[in-house]
């Protein structure tokens, strides 16, 4: 048998999605299509147990995210449990509701850094993607974060409608005082896959964006640090799935569902474990879900014999599932995949014009609404 045995190394990071409630409705949201209701959420005490078990396993970093984590009135208790466990904790927020007082309380509880999202450079464009008027609140939140002197990262999901504004987005990052700007090209599963025709960029847009990033780095060598999260539809190279399935990171959802990746909710036959039923040690080491695609023993051709099998791990399991219905197939983003035509067809359909863009399906619990 070729390949790496499926041994669970110690995980490094925990993504804690403490709620799916959110004032924003971004059409590429990484939350699942089936959102967890507030009544199903883990309590702060349950989160405290999760963080303690995570730290015992080797987790040293946590992203406290959502939805919008600020909608949890007990967020400070959740954060202090993470800090008590010795975990370096970052708040991931839309900024809506982030007053100086709230941030101060969260910093007292142990938040070490803040990642703020923004959807575009100008208020009208940003609010159109957010599906609500949130830009002004984000601007205030940026001021509050900067005034607190806490490490500040800005996250922008990039797609067809905002790639052309990238230079202005980078200027916004500087104006708002971010130390780091994450340029996250849309990954197409869940909500984003539903909106793919409206969001998938053209090749020309991506080429231009890469030049913009390079020029900005050259002009501003002292920062902010620009992190380009590469898109995977256009180059024939798959992204390395979470650094390997069940290799580095654990996602725990609002209701305690534990997954190797935030997109894995969608893999219907995965039988995801829950922290309410099992301790995180069992979930990480023993659960069928975390072992399903761990190592390389599960691979079929062409991955099984590929020289890159330990570099990109066959690509994204969730994308393989979303596009082919089988999470064990090669990621169709890979040019070696027999299903690569699915991705090429989508790229070809993206064309190079801006005309005839379909409307957006906004992320909302249990219903859909479109706008153009």
């Amino acid at each position, binding site marked *: 048998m070729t390949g790496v045995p499926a041994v669970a190394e*110690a995980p*490094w990071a925990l993504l804690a999605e403490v709620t799916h409630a959110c004032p924003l409705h971004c059409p590429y949201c990484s939350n699942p299509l089936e959102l967890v209701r507030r009544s199903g959420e883990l309590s702060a005490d349950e989160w405290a147990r999760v963080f303690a078990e995570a730290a*015992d*396993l*080797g987790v*040293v*970093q946590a992203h406290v995210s959502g939805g919008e984590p600020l909608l949890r009135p007990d967020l400070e208790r959740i954060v202090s449990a993470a800090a008590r466990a*010795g975990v*370096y904790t*970052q708040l991931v927020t839309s900024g809506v509701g982030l007053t100086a007082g709230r941030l101060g309380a969260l910093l007292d509880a142990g938040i*070490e*850094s803040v*990642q703020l999202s923004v959807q575009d450079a100008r208020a009208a464009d940003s609010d159109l993607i957010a599906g609500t008027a949130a830009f002004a609140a984000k601007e205030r939140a940026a001021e509050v974060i900067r005034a607190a*002197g806490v*490490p500040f*990262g800005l996250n922008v999901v990039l797609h067809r409608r905002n790639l052309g504004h990238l230079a202005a987005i980078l200027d916004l990052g500087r104006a708002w005082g971010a*130390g*780091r700007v*994450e340029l996250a090209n849309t990954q197409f599963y869940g909500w984003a896959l539903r909106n793919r025709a409206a969001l998938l960029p053209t090749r020309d847009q991506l080429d231009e964006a890469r030049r913009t990033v390079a020029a900005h780095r050259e002009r501003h060598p002292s920062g902010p640090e620009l*992190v380009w999260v590469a898109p995977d539809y256009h180059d024939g190279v798959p992204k390395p799935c979470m650094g390997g399935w069940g290799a580095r990171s654990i996602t725990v959802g609002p209701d305690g569902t534990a997954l190797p990746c935030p997109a894995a909710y969608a893999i219907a036959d995965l039988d995801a474990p829950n922290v309410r039923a099992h301790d995180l040690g069992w979930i990480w080491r023993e659960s069928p879900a975390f072992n399903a695609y761990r190592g390389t023993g599960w691979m079929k051709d062409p991955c099984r014999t590929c020289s890159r099998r330990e570099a990109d791990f066959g690509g994204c399991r969730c994308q393989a599932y979303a596009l082919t219905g089988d999470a064990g197939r090669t990621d169709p983003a890979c040019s070696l995949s027999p299903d690569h035509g699915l991705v090429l067809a989508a790229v070809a359909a993206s064309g190079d014009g801006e005309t005839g863009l379909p409307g957006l399906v906004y992320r909302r619990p249990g219903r859909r609404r479109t706008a153009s």
Partner: protein
Amino acid sequence: MPSDAPAPAAVDWRPALPPSVRRRHDQVRGAELLLMPERVVRLNAEGGRVLRLCDGRTTVEGIVTALARDFPDAPIAADVPAFLARLRDRGWLR
């Protein structure tokens, strides 16, 4: 590691972690870590020993002297200032 040689560390510099970087001992991996937003740096045993002395009060000269006392045969005087300068260039020390 960056390929370009960093500027040498001044002997009177008192290296300290910036507020965004936390050093902690990881009992699970038996290693010293630097934690920062979106990044974990795992130090080897020598690096961990050097970083534990970066308290903002001890000069580079003081760090070299302390380490040379414990490891008289190691090339401390040459290696440690260069190591500190590399970490400073990456923003992990100031």
